[in-house]
């Protein structure tokens, strides 16, 4: 009973930390309360910039590659390679070679966000039913129109899945951005001497809520762009990597 109350106490303390400002452990600094909002906003800003640039870069490339149905090895491998690089190592590499700060971290996060979006865009376009594309061509549409009016809309659910995966990855990595000189909710988590355990747990709670909220919102967006009657569980049965894509698209973490 004692231990149950004890851990509730820590969670209770953490929740209190989120809502009430108080003085830090060593004194002299105000922490908690509205500071959480500011830190969350910093994290959202960092993530949004990285994600936005990644989409702007990866979607056009993925669209083109999927449309011409070339370089599938590259489009799939980029995700496999991306997965093998630990996010902290990526952050550290750019911190060492480019320096610390918001811009450099955003750059690293953009690189992190590109593979899932690129691969999913490629796969989404690739998997559009050939007959539909042929019909569009038969109607006289040029290449760019086929992409814009047929392939892109039909690939949108898969692309959205890739964006969703990237968003979750980017938000998670933005949490450790303070190690590389950018502010985010990871700052309380990594600075126990200022924030104490309630601060660490409180910030962790806010991060978790932020990540889940982003995932849910993008999931709703994904459902919204899915045309009715399109089965999401397409996949070829030959056991090659194209199989088994679900709502999140390619299983990159």
């Amino acid at each position: 009973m004692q231990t149950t109350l004890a851990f509730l106490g820590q969670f209770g303390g953490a929740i209190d930390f989120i809502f009430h400002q108080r003085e830090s452990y060593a004194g002299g600094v105000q922490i908690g309360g509205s500071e959480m909002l500011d830190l969350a906003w910093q994290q959202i800003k960092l993530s949004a910039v990285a994600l936005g640039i990644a989409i702007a870069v990866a979607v056009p490339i993925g669209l083109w590659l999927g449309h011409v149905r070339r370089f599938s090895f590259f489009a799939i491998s980029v995700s496999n390679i991306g997965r093998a690089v630990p996010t902290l190592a990526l952050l550290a590499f750019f911190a060492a070679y480019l320096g610390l700060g918001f811009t450099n971290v955003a750059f690293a996060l953009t690189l992190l966000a590109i593979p899932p979006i690129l691969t999913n865009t490629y796969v989404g376009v690739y998997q559009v039913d050939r007959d539909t594309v042929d019909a569009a061509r038969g109607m006289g549409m040029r290449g760019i129109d086929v992409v814009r009016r047929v392939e892109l809309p039909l690939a949108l659910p898969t692309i959205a899945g890739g964006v969703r995966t990237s968003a979750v990855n980017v938000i998670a990595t933005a949490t450790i951005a303070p190690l590389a000189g950018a502010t985010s909710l990871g700052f309380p988590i990594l600075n126990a001497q200022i924030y104490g355990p309630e601060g660490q747990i409180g910030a962790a709670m806010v991060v978790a809520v932020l990540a889940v909220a982003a995932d849910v919102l993008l999931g709703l967006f994904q459902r919204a762009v899915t045309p009715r009657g399109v089965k999401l569980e397409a996949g070829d049965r030959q056991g090659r990597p194209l199989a088994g894509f679900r709502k999140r698209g390619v299983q990159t973490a």
Partner: protein
Amino acid sequence: MILELAQVQIHGRSGGGSCVQNDGFCPDWITSNLDRYVDPFLQQVFLVVVSVAVGFLIAGALALLAHRRRWLVGPIIGVTGVLYTIPSLAAFFLLQPITGRGKLTATIALVGYTLLIIFRNVTTGLRGVPEEAKDAGRGLGFTDNQLLWRVEVPLALPEIMAGLRIASTTTVGLATLAFFAGAGGLGERFVGSQIVFKSNVVVAGGLCVLLAIALDLVILGAQRVLTPWTRARSA
């Protein structure tokens, strides 16, 4: 000037500074300091292997459970999906009041992360087994259990192994953060001013990438051994 007889040698540091003093990429320093990375590396290997193994057992069991009871898939995906979405650093500290700091906390968080990946792949793999194969099995008089273990699982193996590969490579990345949960690992090489020391980042980061690739190849190799029939097809 009176000097102390026995005193600490104050090294002259004016001037440009050596490779190491300028945080550069210094092969000499790397070769003579590799031993710093051994313990953290081994701690990380241990964490990853244990977490993926436990995750495989749990997610595999869940998938087998849901294989005959389709209604379970939704809720399981829901729960494991949340575990997947919560950033691991946050997960370490959310677990702290319950399991404290250390390897147990880190392992629980890492296992939680792998569940969705492995569960999805096992389920997809099992569902992807062609009806003809199952009919053939039933024709041979297999019971449901025999059908499962002698037909469905072997044919689902490529998908299952793919899931294991994805799970293990991403767990390597997350285990790098386990240091902040007090569980050791290469994460300790990335804190403070070490993160701007190029030699250090290249070695520590390189070790992480090598570990991920090594695990990937090992599981791929195991897949080739366990499913010799796919080799002919992919050729």
